[in-house]
């Protein structure tokens, strides 16, 4: 069929099952928006910033497993996607991002709104393409979807010069394409899996250590069966939360810098770690020399380069987490580890993760716990900082793909646009962005997007008046010199200030008024007894976003904490007794 490039693109998206595109227009992509105008099968969500378009596609993808799609113009449109792409790349999120480009004959001329998009995005995508022949458009889109969604998923950019977008050609979308350099290994080596099962059966102090790979590959059901069959305790990375119920008796919680006492002690004392779908990254391992000093490590991951990169691995298994665990299941035997299970359960009881006591304002842990009680089946997105850690530690997750958070890159401003993508994919679910007052301002303009789409996303701002996570480091390691972290600062303030309190001038913006300015609902909560009513009120709102401004203790901290570069067992317990 004769089509121009834009029409080919839309045909391709339909064939790939794409129902929604997050985008922002501009000169060279007008023909694509034009083709979408009369296309009922694909919804176009206009975000208010290209970064948010990528985060929204990312939230859509993380919460569904489908590939998220975004569409932006050349130059600034493309450069604005960089943080979104890097965020998705780090956390292995499938995205196809279509960027417009100046016409082929103008590339290299410093043409208006030209940017070297391929050059800029090369190190922050799984792969990228500049389409230089109209005849290669269809196959390139096909390749992009295959690469984005398979193996270790990731974002793929397709850069489309204007003449490719408008060029006409008689062609069809291919069912398959050949890529001889791209063959991800999915099936784990069965010999290795059997060896792993044997080691596991003989271990005295074994642990499963799960990461985001479990969510991505849909391995949670298989993993839960393996845990049930073996009775081996579980620790997880931030990205692994939800692989197993947070309150499962064998789940010791998250390890690492803000991990639980039980998880960090267990990883230090264990004699075997069976890691699945995790990178053993530095926030989780702490100081490598003292990470799991007594443990033999089995590591299954779909990315060979993630194996044995940070820790020595006895049994490497390259493969998809779900397939590996399904293959493991028949061979897995329960080791005799009663004393070990008793020991780790003891650690859990001795030092449970409990909210800090209120120092006059709300305790953030209490707020998140109430959110968990009122909305036990929500999908939680987070910003970055203390809010993210409190969301990880205090919400009770029961299902995979329900904690949507920027783990690898740690992108402030991720949570709200991601929540928009999540809500579009799951209109019937409660979607809550647990936010910091700093991070939320990084993409607050997306209120307009949420209003435009009638999305009842709840933004729970844990408002401490600070870039709290940085302030916590300053409090603990920089003598309380709160340099560049106070968000209440005004010209009237003293040069230096380490004493936030009632003397401070009003916080800007006023999040309640801000919500109202966006024709949305704003609620301020200052007392503990107001938390639940506010959440219930928010639940009543069905057609627009709600901001709840929880005024929390300014100097509330995240505990436990392993100081940067320290050993996991040397965590500071702070207020957690």
């Amino acid at each position, binding site marked *: 069929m004769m089509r121009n490039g834009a029409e080919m693109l839309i045909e391709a998206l339909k064939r790939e099952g794409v129902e929604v595109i997050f985008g922002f227009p501009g000169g060279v992509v007008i023909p694509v928006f034009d083709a979408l105008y009369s296309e009922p099968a694909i919804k176009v969500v206009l975000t208010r910033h290209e970064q948010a378009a990528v985060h929204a596609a990312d939230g859509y993808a993380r919460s569904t497993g489908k590939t998220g799609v975004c569409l932006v113009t050349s130059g600034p449109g493309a450069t604005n996607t960089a943080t979104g792409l890097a965020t998705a790349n780090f956390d292995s999120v499938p995205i196809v991002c279509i960027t417009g480009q100046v016409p082929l004959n103008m590339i290299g001329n410093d043409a208006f709104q030209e940017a070297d998009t*391929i*050059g800029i995005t*090369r*190190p922050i995508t*799984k*792969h990228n393409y*500049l389409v*230089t022949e109209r005849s290669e458009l269809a196959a390139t889109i096909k390749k992009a979807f295959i*690469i984005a969604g398979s193996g270790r998923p990731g974002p793929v950019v397709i850069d489309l010069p204007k003449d490719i977008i408008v060029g006409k050609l008689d062609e069809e979308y291919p069912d398959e394409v050949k*890529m*001889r*350099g*791209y063959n991800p290994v999915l099936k784990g080596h069965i010999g290795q899996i059997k060896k792993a099962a044997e080691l596991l059966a003989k271990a005295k102090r074994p642990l499963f250590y799960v990461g985001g790979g479990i969510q991505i590959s849909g391995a949670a059901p298989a993993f839960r069966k393996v845990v049930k069959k073996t009775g081996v305790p579980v620790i997880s990375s931030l990205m692994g939360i939800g692989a197993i119920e947070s309150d499962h008796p064998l789940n010791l919680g998250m390890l690492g810098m803000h991990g639980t006492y039980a998880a960090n002690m267990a990883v230090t004392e264990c004699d075997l770690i069976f890691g699945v779908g995790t990178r053993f990254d530095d926030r989780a391992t702490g100081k490598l020399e003292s990470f799991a000093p007594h443990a033999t490590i089995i590591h299954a991951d779909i*990315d*060979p*380069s993630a194996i*044995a*990169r940070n820790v020595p691995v006895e049994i490497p298994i390259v493969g998809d987490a779900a397939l590996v665990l399904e293959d493991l299941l028949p061979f897995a035997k329960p080791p005799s580890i009663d004393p070990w299970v008793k020991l780790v359960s003891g650690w859990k009881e001795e030092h449970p993760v409990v909210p800090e006591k209120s120092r006059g304002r709300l305790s953030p842990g209490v707020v998140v716990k109430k959110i968990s009680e009122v909305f036990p089946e929500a999908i939680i997105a987070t910003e970055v900082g203390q809010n993210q850690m409190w969301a990880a530690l205090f919400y009770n997750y029961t299902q995979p793909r329900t904690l949507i958070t920027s783990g690898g890159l740690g992108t402030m401003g991720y949570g709200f646009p991601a929540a928009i993508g999540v809500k579009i994919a799951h209109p019937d679910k409660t979607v809550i962005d647990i936010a910091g007052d700093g991070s939320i301002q990084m993409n607050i303009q997306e209120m307009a997007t949420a209003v435009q789409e009638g999305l009842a996303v709840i933004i729970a701002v844990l408002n401490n008046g600070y870039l709290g996570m940085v302030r916590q480091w300053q409090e603990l390691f920089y003598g309380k010199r709160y340099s560049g972290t106070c968000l209440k600062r005004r010209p009237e303030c003293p040069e230096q200030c380490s004493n936030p309190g009632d003397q401070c001038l009003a916080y800007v913006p006023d999040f309640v008024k801000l919500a109202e300015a966006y024709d949305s609902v704003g609620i301020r909560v200052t007392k503990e007894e107001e938390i639940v009513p506010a959440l219930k009120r928010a639940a009543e709102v069905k057609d627009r976003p709600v901001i709840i401004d929880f005024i929390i203790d300014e100097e509330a901290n995240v505990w436990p904490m392993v100081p940067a570069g320290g050993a996991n067992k040397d965590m500071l317990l702070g207020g957690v007794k």
Partner: protein
Amino acid sequence: MTHVISLLVENHQGVLVRIAGLFSGRAYNLESLTVGVTTDPAVSRVTLVCSGDDAVIEQIKKQLNKLVDVIKVIDLTGLKSINRELALVKVQAGPERRAEIIQVADVFRARVIDVGADSISLEVTGSTEKIDDLLSIIGTSAVQEMARSGLVSIERGRKTKKTAKGA
């Protein structure tokens, strides 16, 4: 340790940048990189020389393998391989030193390709060590200009009959 890695890659624009970018982005040591076509015009062969401890080399190979445009990664280190480099060397040599330089060139089977009023230009091929040796005998202070190609390598043919390897 230094490794010689041979890659078969799709002959696309941008492939070299991806490879070079991987080395710069991850702070790996890249000593030389050469590229040329193979008998299949859609495939190029890249030879790269890099260094690092075993763990780093392992990562380099895994990361190269992950690149969509890389079809095959062969670490020639430890395999029987043929490694050659070409150097063009312009040596400072007035008439009084010419004979000596030509003699040295002879020993290294270098060819004299140009003689100027106060210089001689040599072309030499061989292993990296051979070229280094030649240069140290001539003395680096006498070298006016030099261009080295970087290493190109292939695996040696099997001495017993078996199916031949691709491009």
